């Protein structure tokens, strides 16, 4: 249920920011109706497929995003080198299955998406507690195996539980 | 500043053209999907840039629609591809079909 509360806030903010008409009572009332309608469908989905209390990644999220952004930049530079100077920096495509320490689906999804978001590594398959990673470089997969990202996502997850 | 915006818009067009070429030559369905996906994301950027270039920021709504549609489209295409192409079928088509 907490998820729906957060969703209400999120949706209301989204509407207000998109609309930009904050003093027009007609549009505001339309906004209320629209948010309620969306909440209705979200509630129906939620009933069927609940998030396991996994509601707010919010408090830890900005920090994680900042860290992730740094990772993305570093990984981008790595891939760029391979694109422009293929002779000096050869490719070494690798597939490896790594363990993941997250407990919830949301956590696993976050981890897998973070892997994909950093160029150079793509999560190929998530099965149980393992994720199959396809990496452009052996080194980047090695880095991933050290598990810093895994730890950070799990830390995010701990705040939820 | 407008010059930079203009240059960026043109450059994004060039990127789109390159992605388009990739979509034409394939090889194979998945390369095409990848290229189409990239084409879509670049279209979003193009619209946003063009909106700024002509001072019509309401174009951003359209850009947002594109992001949505592109995402849903790619998922849809993948779904159908998976259902139609059987596993034993080669994913790269014979080269005669990839001329152009």
């Amino acid at each position, binding site marked *: 249920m907490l998820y729906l509360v957060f*969703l209400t806030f*999120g*949706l209301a903010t*989204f*509407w207000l920011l998109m*609309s930009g*008409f904050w003093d027009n009572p007609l*549009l505001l009332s*339309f906004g209320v109706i*629209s*948010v309620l*309608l*969306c909440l209705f*469908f*979200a509630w*129906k*989905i939620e009933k069927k*497929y609940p998030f396991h209390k996994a509601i707010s990644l919010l408090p830890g999220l900005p920090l994680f995003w900042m860290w992730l952004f740094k990772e993305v930049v570093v990984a981008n530079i790595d891939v760029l080198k391979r694109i422009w100077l293929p002779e000096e920096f050869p490719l070494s495509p690798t597939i490896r299955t790594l363990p993941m320490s997250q407990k919830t689906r*949301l956590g696993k*999804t976050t981890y*897998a998406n973070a892997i994909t978001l950093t160029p150079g590594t793509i999560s190929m398959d*998530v099965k149980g507690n393992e994720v199959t990673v396809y990496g452009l470089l052996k080194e980047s997969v090695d880095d991933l195996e050290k598990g810093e990202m895994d730890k950070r996502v799990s830390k995010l997850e701990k705040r939820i539980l | 500043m407008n010059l930079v915006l203009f240059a960026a818009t043109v450059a994004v067009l060039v990127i*789109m053209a390159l992605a*388009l070429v990739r*979509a*034409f030559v394939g090889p194979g*369905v998945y390369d*095409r*999907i990848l290229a*189409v996906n990239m084409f*879509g994301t670049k*279209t979003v950027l*193009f*619209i946003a840039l*063009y909106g700024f270039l002509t001072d*019509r920021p*309401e*174009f951003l*709504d*359209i850009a*947002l*629609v*594109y992001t*949505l*549609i*592109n*995402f*849903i*489209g790619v*998922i*849809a*295409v993948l*779904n*159908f*591809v*998976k*259902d*139609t192409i059987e596993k034993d079928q080669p994913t790269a088509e014979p080269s005669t*079909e990839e001329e*152009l």
Partner: protein
Amino acid sequence: MLAATSIAVARMRNLFAAVMLFGIYSLLSANIFIIQDAVDVAFTEAAVGAGISTVLMLGTLVMTGYKEKKPSRSSFLPLFIVIVTGAVLIYGTLDLPPFGAADNPVHTHVVPRYLEESAKEIGIPNVVTSVLASYRGFDTFGETVVVFTALIGVLTLLGVSLPPKTPAQSPNEYPPQPILPIMAKLLIPYILLFALYVQFHGDFGPGGGFQAGVIFAAGFILYALTFGLRETMQLLSPNVLRALAGIGVLLYGGTGVVSFFLGGTFLNYSVLAQDPLHGQHYGIIIIELGVGITVAAVILSIYYAFMSRSKALSTDNQIL
């Protein structure tokens, strides 16, 4: 690029690739519309052309098979006909006044009035919406009815059936693969809200009933793609949709009739409120709502009808 794409589409024997290129074709033409400042048209093209028609064409492909047959006859006759038609069309355009000239009939007939008076008479900023919904209210009503008729046609031909329950899935479990369903679940409420935003801000910016309906339907199609068709039908059943499509048309027509009885003519909304400006505004909002509801319901119904025909698609997918 547009030309190259269309040539490639015609040459492609693999219909999957052709459909995808069609998607690109739509995106490109939408870009051209944008460059020509036809924002609303671009909006529609983006939503309908690139998204929904691609999905529906793919649905058709799954039903019919994805390799085009090799043409058995020579392609000379069709080519000849196309060339002749093209030549006639080009000859026709020679008679037209130069493109963009200020004294073209297009620019002197009703357009100046629309552009100059619409702000005064209708009182909303987006001229396209006021033309569409007010000056050309009849045309738009006709279009809505056409959409509705298309639905009736498709439903008569195909029909919708609830796909069988998959035995492997216990009722309260996620599909086996977490990523896409989770992402879809996170995003769908916002997609729906965005559609409604487009719906209600049609008078201020680009957008309106048609586009909103399409985006709204797209949100549910995403749900169907990730959670399976059966789930979606439980969320929003085909019968409800059929009713909604009717309600949308009725809402539109009803507005016209009400204005008729209040002393105006059919679809003249000025009489809906004390102040004609407000009357016009409310009228437009209501009929846009009617259009939106109809379009969303029709597209989703057609999607249901297509997908429930194909057994492979209606069951849950394991790969994604």
